[in-house]
């Protein structure tokens, strides 16, 4: 019986968590620091892009479409379909398409999820 009482009291070791910092973050005001090499939103360098379309062919979800802009071909990414695997950036022959560590890309309207070449080449804050 005595052993059982001890066993019931054992979990009280977690009292130490009363004096430690919480494991969670106060989200909208505090966020996790972005990690180098994180696969977030894409970034396109329009001068480097040759419009080969390999990114569109490699995309597992067919989220990339090749469109024409001022006589040249560029990728247009539907971020709603994208699974952020980074295959497009990995197989880009000129490294024009890159993954950035930007993770905060939620939007209210579905149509805003379509990122054309102009929107993709905007600098990341």
């Amino acid at each position, binding site marked *: 019986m005595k052993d059982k009482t001890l066993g019931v009291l054992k979990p009280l070791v977690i009292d130490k968590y009363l004096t430690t910092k919480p*494991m969670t973050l106060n989200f909208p005001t505090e966020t996790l620091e972005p*990690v180098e090499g994180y696969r977030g939103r894409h970034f396109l360098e329009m001068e480097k892009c040759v419009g080969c379309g390999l990114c569109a062919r490699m995309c597992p979800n067919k989220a990339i479409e090749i469109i024409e802009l001022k006589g040249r071909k560029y990728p247009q990414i539907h971020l709603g379909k994208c699974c952020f695997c980074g295959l497009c950036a990995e197989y880009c022959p000129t490294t024009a398409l890159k993954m950035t560590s930007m993770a905060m890309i939620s939007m209210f309207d579905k149509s805003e999820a379509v990122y054309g070449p102009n929107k993709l080449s905007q600098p990341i804050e």
Partner: protein
Amino acid sequence: MKKNKLEEREITPEFLLPFGPQHPASGHFYASIIIDGERVVELNPHPGYLHRGLEKLMEYRTHVQNCMLVDRICILDPFSNEIGYVNAVEKITGIEVPERAKFIRTIMAELGRILSHITWIGVNSMALGLDSGTRIAWGNRERIIRLNEIITGGRIYPCYFTVGGVRRDLPQGFKEKIMKELDYVEKQLNVYDSLVFENEIFIMRMKGVGTFGAKEAIALGTTGPNLRGCGVKTDVRKDESYEAYPMVDFRVVTMKDGDAYSRALVRRGELAESISIIRQLLEKIPEGKFRVIIPSFMKSPKGDTHFCCEAARGELCFHMVSDGSPNPYRVKVRGPSFSHTLSEFPYLVKGVNIADVPAIYWSLDPCPADMDR
């Protein structure tokens, strides 16, 4: 006097109680339980709430693209799924993987096992009403997810392994980073011991509940920690060693009783073993290439292949048929949770109290995503 509606109703002792799919302790899994008072008479599982048609989707994607898809088989243990698929493709095409890639894959697979088992401590505590266990375990899980993020670039879906190696080399100072987290997890194991595994209330809820013998377990298709909990010494990592497992020394944890508590202790033992495996691998990891470059739309020769690996929940097998095109003709996945939920669970809950149903369910460590696919 006129009888009211309640009195007119035919009274039977049996009653249908739904378990899931919105139950906090069931995941996306629905089972209808027929109860008589407090006792379970029969349990009928109804799978399909998380069916995504993964096997069919794989037929429309190339081998490299499929590496991104197999993560979704079981969200809590992504590396084992990737290791299984990638090895099946390498077996059918005959690609030789660099030694360093094998080590990296094994380290990540073991990290995935730690991740899965810590998550399991959390959900099992939740099923028993031990909420502090859930919070602490899931809080610690975050640290390993952060490590995943640093190494692979993804938090939950790492998409790290590819045909011919891994997609990027380990970052600078990886040894210290991984060692630091391993030390932390090892220190936390003492907390789990006193909070969960040696907690008298936990033992009273788990001991002698959901017991089956080795013979019955094998007949029901049990694999992994659940079978080891019945005293059967079986582990694919030892039996048909793959990747860098032949180069490490580890113990196959077994328990004799075959009840929910022995299954819990097997997982506790495996956490310590995984930490020791990663430490050994980090000491021996060779320098060199981490990837063989393969064509983007590589064609695989005609034929079929079969590869099994030890996932955190049990044996995960891939049977792949190829017709010579860049896509697989058919991929059949045999996940460990399929038998956990659909054959063992209904068998084990016959005649137990309703309160023991979540305890038995989570002691089997099923993953509804893996079961439905």
